[in-house]
């Protein structure tokens, strides 16, 4: 019989094992309560493809529901168009920003493969979608109270930025836990992501209001579009 000394890392005790076939609710629970477990699984390559698909599903569902609430403001075709645009816009923004995230993360010193960064990004979007889902009743109540487009837009902007604050904070913390030393590069990317997302909402307009067209090729900067909408409502 030989003696074995088992060294336990205090951090390990905080890590909850996530099943390879976790249910949607288990993933939501882990995202909200145990983000460190998520980071650990991603870093150690224990995060299954099945769970990644479920995260994508959570994202789609959350964005779809929130999109429906946005569409309910104008009704008619926007019931269908708004959810589609919200999903397409978020996915496109993530795809556009993904290469720069990968390079900036590597520059910040973390040793993460593209797939690991991809999962982290998807989980961050899933968290945004979950939080938006949480805000959905609030947005729904405002939708039936507010009459003017710019104010409704402002409410949605606040709710989106509130959700993004937590989900991007989750992303930044995850990158730090996984080895990023230069947080300023990660923060720089977060700014790029938010600006791209805001611009995307203008590119895919109208999302909230209703126009004669479903999409437009007219080029416009998002701040310009906002001020123009404000002027129109006066």
């Amino acid at each position: 019989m030989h003696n074995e000394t088992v060294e336990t890392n205090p951090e390990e005790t905080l890590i909850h094992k996530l099943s390879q076939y976790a249910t949607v609710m288990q993933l939501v629970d882990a995202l909200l309560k145990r983000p460190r477990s998520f980071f650990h699984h991603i870093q150690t390559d224990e995060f299954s493809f099945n769970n990644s698909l479920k995260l994508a599903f959570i994202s789609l569902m959350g964005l779809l529901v929130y999109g429906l609430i946005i569409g309910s403001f104008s009704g008619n075709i926007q019931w269908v168009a708004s959810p589609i645009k919200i999903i397409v816009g978020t996915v496109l923004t993530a795809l556009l920003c993904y290469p720069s995230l990968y390079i900036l993360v590597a520059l910040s010193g973390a040793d993460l493969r593209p797939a690991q960064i991809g999962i982290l990004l998807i989980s961050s979007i899933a968290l945004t979608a979950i939080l938006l889902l949480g805000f959905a009743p609030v947005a729904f109540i405002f939708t039936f109270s507010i009459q003017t487009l710019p104010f409704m837009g402002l409410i949605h902007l606040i709710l989106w930025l509130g959700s993004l604050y937590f989900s991007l904070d989750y992303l930044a913390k995850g990158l730090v836990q996984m080895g990023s030393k230069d947080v300023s590069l990660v923060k720089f990317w977060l700014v790029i992501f938010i600006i791209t997302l805001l611009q995307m909402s203008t590119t895919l307009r109208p999302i909230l209001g209703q126009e004669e067209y479903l999409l437009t090729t007219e080029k416009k900067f998002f701040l310009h579009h906002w001020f123009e909408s404000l002027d129109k409502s006066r």
Partner: protein
Amino acid sequence: MHWEIAIRQLCQARVEVLAAWLHDEKRYLLISLGLLIMGGAMYGASLGVWRDPLQAFYVAIKFPLLLGLTALGNALINGMLAQLLGASISFRQSLLAILMSYALLAIILGAFAPLSWFLVWHLPAMGSLSQTLGYDLYLLTNVVLIIFAGLIANSQLYRLLVYICQDALKAKQILIAWLIVNLFLGAQLSWNLRPFFGSPHLVVKFLRDNPFDGSFYEAIFYIVINYMGA
């Protein structure tokens, strides 16, 4: 070596890892060159696309060519300067160190290419009333992006030089000497290989008429003279 691992190692710039690259020059010269071409082509295409898709194709070829020719054209003098200023590295190793730095620059720029394309999508198009505004905005954004990527690439090169020389002062001197020489040739080569952005007022061409007629420095000289009214 897997390309993705090479990209990560270049970005992370762990000096002991990159210094090991210098001992397998042949292999890493090819890898650095490959990354330079890949990243440079992606970014080059995004530079030219505002003017015309054909311009995008031309610049996708010219941008990596500019970086590669600058490194190769200065390979000899850069190697000499490194040795003269106290770095015990061969000519090939100094060429590789510079190519690694250019490859990193190209990778960073290439990673921002999708966002650059997205920006082009929203700028006033060619032929529109505010095309000059679009051109100026695009020019400015890309200058900022190149400065950002250049700063990072050079700071990583500096860290590598400090590791090689074991002396921060020597590393600084070598970096400054290389920068001066490379900017000197690079500016001229970019003049010869112009247009990159593609002026809205000129037709799309791979090179301007008589690309070897005149120099970057002459052009600057005449601009200054004209400005002073001489």
